[in-house]
């Protein structure tokens, strides 16, 4: 451990920091020392640092306002390199550790000489909403190219990280009978009551340890110090099975007892202290039957000029630094209060040796005598002076004067932290309600499974908080526990109503980060922005990173005054999750980048990888696009080679990814009849049939073959893309429309590996693989199916073809599919069997005029793709009714056609638009249609071919058309239209 450095504002005793463990860290490259248990804020304050940052709009120098998550000013960057940069960290919540490096943000030049402070000089010209009223000169281009870039550069707070986050994050599903939000003394008391009644309880506390202000504010409990009392309560809760989660922010309340919480596991530790393989943060999705909101209250400031000066802070913050960290934020302290609570803080500072003057806004305040504390009644802080740190405070009111001060603490009253109780406001049909006596919003009436405890209820004294905790425990079925006797209790009273002092204006800040002032609120009202939402949006009050925790209520109180309404009438804005900002990455958890979604692999994926395959995504599947062989120049070269080999001799491809559904039951044929457009009742056992399914809206959904394996047993295949959707559709139709059909079905996609053998030698190869099966044209005719065995395993042989060749698909159980694939390769070796991928398949199916998802894009009818003849007129089926709507017989519908490039080497562009002229005009009224699929080289045609949809398709066969693509530099390509069935139109090859 390095030598101890001086910490000028650190008292030599007090606080709950570990004075045995000095911690060295930096801020703006200067080295400082604090103690273990310090926040960055407390450690820097201990070192006399007052200036922490700059405000968003006017770049005014700012210090610390609060001591916790409400802090609007002191945002810093924690830098561990560009990838591990952590901007906008609240200094009050950042725990220091050895070697921590932090930086101030949002300034040009050093923090104390920020060039952007020029904004402050012109602040009178930059009132709320100024940007709506100017920047017109020069029109759109001037805005976009000149004004807006300047605004964008000036805006923003910290610097963004520039690379992937090196940390990992976990999502944890956490369950509890009751979630207690807030581990202060009220939350812990309720938790103990519930845990003792046998409930499973989780207590989430946003700060670094359980206990809240009881830890340090000097009250005693049954004679014990707060820290000791809290410690033994925590032990009791854990002994009863409760879980205590410090550093855990419950950020949102969702439906049915679901809560989002983030636990910070690493940020307070040095790298060496972090357990390996553990997450930086955990996102707990908490499911609880009941909840206790023990979220506490947040102190508010008062609007007066200069209330944003470094050194002006909330009284509770000053008290926290003193009590929790042993840091005295000033020697000559002015304390401006509107209620008795300020006196406890005054007494604590006085006891710590500070010279304290209380400015009590109340003329009728009771006399309080505290050693060394001067009290001036009926006055308010009118103006704080001192650009880089408060030096002097002018007070006014019943008397006026000026005080030398190096700190000004403000006790403006308390706002219960009602945020979470309003996330699901609709459940209670009520937002937080305004209590005109407390001058604060309190939770609305809560539902049965909810309770509130502690100062969030509006309770002020510790004794009252404990009583609410006991009531909360009782409401939720807890066991009665003895409440402690509180001694040395701090004074409390209801506040006097003073939201802003007389004369507060341009420099009286409400939203410190966004620089929204008392004057801005008045201006909003003057301009007609009288709804609280209008005021918020117009002034941006409450829209900063602290979401107005210290500012909102004051802002709307001033709006109420400016518009002559009650505060209750004005109401609050809606609180939205998250309660405090949380890293986006923690909510993503494990599922990011490569692990964003699972991969689905065919059983021969590894073989394909080892044999030169390049894969493409097909939904979650990885499918070989093409196999690169020695000598292949590019993907097209490979695909053409694979096509030629298949057409010329024998190809093999993996079709394991097709959806497969096993259908059984006496009504299976009836079910198929209703699902498909064509008839199924006459299909013999041992035969397959091509089927087309429509959606209920009458447009084509999916196609595939279904085979009849037994009297009541069918095996359906779907496209890879629609496998899940078809299964879901079948389940929907069966269960919602025809639940009495005696049929059951199951997805067997993963059970079967399947390959296609295609080409003139496919039969010979199949015969070698299945020597005991008659695979002759008679034994296994086109659309025939045989179930047999391969090496003791079931094998299904289907004589079907997508490529247009003589072809077979063979399915065997996935466990042995790799072995079967190898056997097929071996068997086909004598015919130079060639594996082919999707690119070659694409060439072949386009040559054959077979459609895929490019054509069946959810907008085409059966007729559009030339399959209108597949409609049985004898029966009803899904989609039939809607396909009888008038648009379906519109003569202008685009229908499928084949296109052939005019000459070899010409490209046809996928997504190109078809016109009948090369000269134009090209617009939407002259377009005939569009290209859906392209084979950039068809060996059959020795040039590019394509499938397209055009109006009056049949009329264009044999004629010249033009494919135009403006997004390819207005390329215009001459093509000839044809029937889309380029290859073997009479199916002689597939039937051979």
């Amino acid at each position, binding site marked *: 451990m390095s030598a101890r450095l001086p910490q000028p504002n650190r008292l030599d005793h007090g606080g709950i920091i570990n004075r045995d463990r000095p911690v060295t860290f930096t801020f703006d490259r200067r080295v400082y020392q604090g103690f273990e248990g310090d926040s960055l804020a407390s450690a820097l304050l201990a070192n006399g640092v007052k200036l922490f940052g700059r405000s968003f709009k006017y770049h005014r120098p700012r210090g610390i306002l609060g001591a916790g998550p409400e802090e609007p000013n002191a945002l810093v960057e924690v830098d561990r390199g560009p990838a591990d940069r952590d901007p906008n960290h609240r200094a009050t919540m950042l725990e220091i550790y050895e070697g921590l490096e932090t930086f101030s943000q949002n300034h040009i030049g050093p923090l104390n000489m920020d060039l952007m402070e020029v904004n402050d000089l012109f602040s009178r010209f930059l009132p709320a909403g100024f940007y709506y009223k100017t920047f017109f000169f020069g029109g759109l281009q001037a805005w976009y190219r000149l004004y807006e870039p300047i605004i964008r550069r000036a805006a923003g*707070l*910290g610097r963004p990280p*520039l*690379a992937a986050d090196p940390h990992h994050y976990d999502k944890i599903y956490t369950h509890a009978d009751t979630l207690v939000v807030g581990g202060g003394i009220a939350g812990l008391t309720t938790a103990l009551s519930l845990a003792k009644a046998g409930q499973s309880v989780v207590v989430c506390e946003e700060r670094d340890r359980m206990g809240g202000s009881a830890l340090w504010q000097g009250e005693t409990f049954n004679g014990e110090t707060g820290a000791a009392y809290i410690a033994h309560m925590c032990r009791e809760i854990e002994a009863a099975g409760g879980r205590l989660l410090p550093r855990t922010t419950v950020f949102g309340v969702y439906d049915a007892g679901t809560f989002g919480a983030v636990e910070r596991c690493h940020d307070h530790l040095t790298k060496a202290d972090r357990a390996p393989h553990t997450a930086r943060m955990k996102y707990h999705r908490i499911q609880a039957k009941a909840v206790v909101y023990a979220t506490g209250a947040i102190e508010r400031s008062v609007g007066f000029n200069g209330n944003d000066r470094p050194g002006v802070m909330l009284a509770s913050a000053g008290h926290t630094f003193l009590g929790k960290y042993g840091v005295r934020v000033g020697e000559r302290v002015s304390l401006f209060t509107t209620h008795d609570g300020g006196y406890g803080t005054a007494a604590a500072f006085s006891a710590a040796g500070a010279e304290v003057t209380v400015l009590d806004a109340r003329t009728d305040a009771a006399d309080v005598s505290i050693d060394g504390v001067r009290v001036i009644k009926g006055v308010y802080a009118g103006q704080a002076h001192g650009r880089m740190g408060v030096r002097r405070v002018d007070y006014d009111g019943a008397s006026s004067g000026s005080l030398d001060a190096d700190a000004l603490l403000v006790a403006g009253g308390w706002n219960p932290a009602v945020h979470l109780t309003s996330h699901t406001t609709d459940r209670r049909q009520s937002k937080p309600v305004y209590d005109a006596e407390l001058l604060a919003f309190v939770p609305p009436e809560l539902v049965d499974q909810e309770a509130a405890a502690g100062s969030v209820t509006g309770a002020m004294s510790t004794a009252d908080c404990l009583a609410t905790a006991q009531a909360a425990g009782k409401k939720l079925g807890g066991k009665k526990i003895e409440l402690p006797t509180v001694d040395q209790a701090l004074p409390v009273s209801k506040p006097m109503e003073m939201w802003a002092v007389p004369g507060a204006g341009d420099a009286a800040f409400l939203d410190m980060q966004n620089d929204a002032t008392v004057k801005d609120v008045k201006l909003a009202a003057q301009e007609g922005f009288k709804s609280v939402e209008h005021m918020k949006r117009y002034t941006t009050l409450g829209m900063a990173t602290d*979401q107005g925790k210290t500012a909102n209520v004051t802002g709307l109180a001033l709006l109420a005054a400016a518009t002559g309404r009650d505060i209750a009438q004005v109401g609050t804005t809606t609180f939205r999750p*998250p309660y405090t900002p949380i890293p986006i*990455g923690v909510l993503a958890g494990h599922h990011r980048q*490569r692990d964003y979604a699972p*991969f689905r692999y065919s059983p021969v994926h590894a073989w394909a990888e080892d044999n030169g395959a390049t894969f493409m995504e097909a939904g979650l599947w990885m499918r070989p696009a093409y196999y690169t062989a020695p000598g292949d120049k590019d993907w097209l070269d490979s695909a053409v080679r694979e096509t030629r080999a298949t057409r010329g001799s024998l190809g093999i491809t993996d079709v394991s990814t097709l959806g497969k559904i096993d259908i059984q039951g006496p009504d299976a044929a009836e079910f198929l009849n209703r699902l498909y457009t064509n008839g199924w009742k006459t299909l013999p056992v041992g035969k397959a049939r091509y089927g087309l399914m429509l959606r209920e809206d009458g447009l084509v959904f999916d196609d595939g073959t279904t085979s009849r394996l037994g009297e009541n047993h069918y095996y359906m295949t779907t496209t890879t893309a629609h496998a899940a959707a078809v299964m879901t559709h079948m389940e929907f139709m069966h269960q919602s429309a025809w639940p009495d059909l005696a049929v059951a079905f199951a997805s067997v996609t993963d059970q079967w590996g399947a390959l296609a053998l295609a080409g003139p030698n496919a039969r010979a190869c199949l015969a070698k693989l299945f020597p005991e099966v008659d695979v002759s044209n008679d034994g296994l005719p086109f659309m025939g199916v045989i179930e047999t065995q391969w090496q003791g395993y079931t094998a299904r042989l289907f004589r079907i073809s997508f490529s247009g060749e003589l072809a077979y698909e063979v399915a065997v159980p996935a466990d042995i599919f790799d072995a079967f694939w190898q056997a097929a390769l071996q068997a086909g070796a004598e015919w130079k069997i060639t594996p082919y991928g999707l690119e070659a398949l694409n060439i072949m199916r386009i040559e054959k005029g077979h459609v895929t998802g490019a054509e069946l894009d959810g907008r085409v009818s059966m007729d559009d793709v030339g399959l209108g003849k597949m409609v049985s007129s004898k029966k009803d089926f899904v989609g039939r009714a809607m396909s009888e709507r008038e648009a379906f017989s519109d003569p202008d519908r685009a229908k499928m056609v084949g296109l052939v490039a005019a000459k070899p080497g010409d490209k046809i562009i996928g997504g190109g638009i078809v016109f009948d002229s090369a000269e134009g005009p090209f617009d939407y009224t002259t377009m005939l249609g569009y290209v859906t699929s392209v084979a950039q080289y068809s060996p059959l045609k020795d040039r590019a071919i394509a499938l397209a949809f055009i109006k009056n398709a049949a009329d264009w066969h044999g004629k010249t058309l033009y494919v135009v693509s403006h997004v390819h530099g207005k390329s215009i390509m001459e093509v000839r239209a044809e029937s889309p069935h380029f290859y073997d139109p009479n199916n002689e090859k597939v039937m051979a």
Partner: protein
Amino acid sequence: MSDRYGFWRLLREGLRGHTGWGPAWRDPEPKAEYDVIIIGGGGHGLATAYYLAKVHGITNVAVLEKGYLGGGNVGRNTTIVRSNYLHTGNELFYEKSLQLWEGLSGDLDYNVMFSPRSIINCFHTDGQRDAEARRGNQMILHGADAVLLDKEGVRREAPLIDVDNPRFPIYGGLMQKRAGTARHDAVAWGFARGADKRGVDLIQNCEVTGIDVEDGRVTGVQTSRGPIKAKKIGMAVAGNTSRVGALAGLRLPIESHVLQAFVSEGIKPMLHNVITFGAGHFYISQSDKGGLVFGASLDGYNTYAQRGNLPLIEHVMEAGVSFVPAMSKVRLLRSWGGVMDMSPDGSPIIDKTPIEGLYLNAGWCYGGFKATPGSGWCFSHLIADKPTHHIAQMRLDRFKTGRVIDELGAGAQHNLH
């Protein structure tokens, strides 16, 4: 003194303490009768009133708003403006709307901060590239602009996008340069101020509780502030269309779904364009203030509550971090939800209803914000009996005729669009 906005006025007001700014709009009591009532003081309703007054000279108009002006989806969206649609039924309309956006600040004398920072839709397969090429081509044929980017083009435009995404690599993107973002509240306020200036009564806190129909035609409305007569009533209440329609006995092809949106803390510029990740239905842009503004798909269940649930939130963050890995450490500031009028084909309806004098503007799905000026323009023309060709296909009866406008090809299921 002119009440026009501008630099010199700002300067003058600054020097005299901003005492000269008058209200942006009046706060009138409702009259007994108007020529036209627009139900809904959101973006579309205000824009309709503005164009009724400005283009058609119809100024005896009331806009009735249940809450505060601009409090619906115009105040809770991700501010994206674009005209990158495939189908004529949509593209003619959205391109008209985009053209209005381009001159809107000047037209309204209100800086709506329309920023043509471009949109890029990233795709992941050759098939998707062809589909995007077709869309780009068709956009151009409708007078819009489009550029097809390859992988490197996307990388150049948006260096922080993980184009080499190890799960769903990006092959390229379709870019519309004229697309961008705008300041959403300013749009509502600008139209409101413009309409008010031309004599339109904007009546807030005035809930329509009944629509009076006699002999098949409207005669007026009942409101929380008393009855108001009118021979023409325009509904522009997306999010509440079914509820308001029911007041006139209409059952409409609409479901209500929540779309969540998210904004991060402000940070210095890291993303210039609006950019979308096809594999995650994720979109993101960065606001002038520095917040990353992003979202993805619907939660999927029907709701009128303006909030969503965690599973979708998790999905959005997963997609976001996969697409823009650097955003992992940026903090989420706020999330919210807007209630979407989901139609069965994902496209809007601007049409007359079977009740004479009752006009419908609904079914905006996610597309309402970018449509604001176009919607107001076209709806005002329809109400003024001068319907324009831009909305020729946005018919209410299209689900009966089958002439649907299905951009996604997802079919007749409201929550799939």
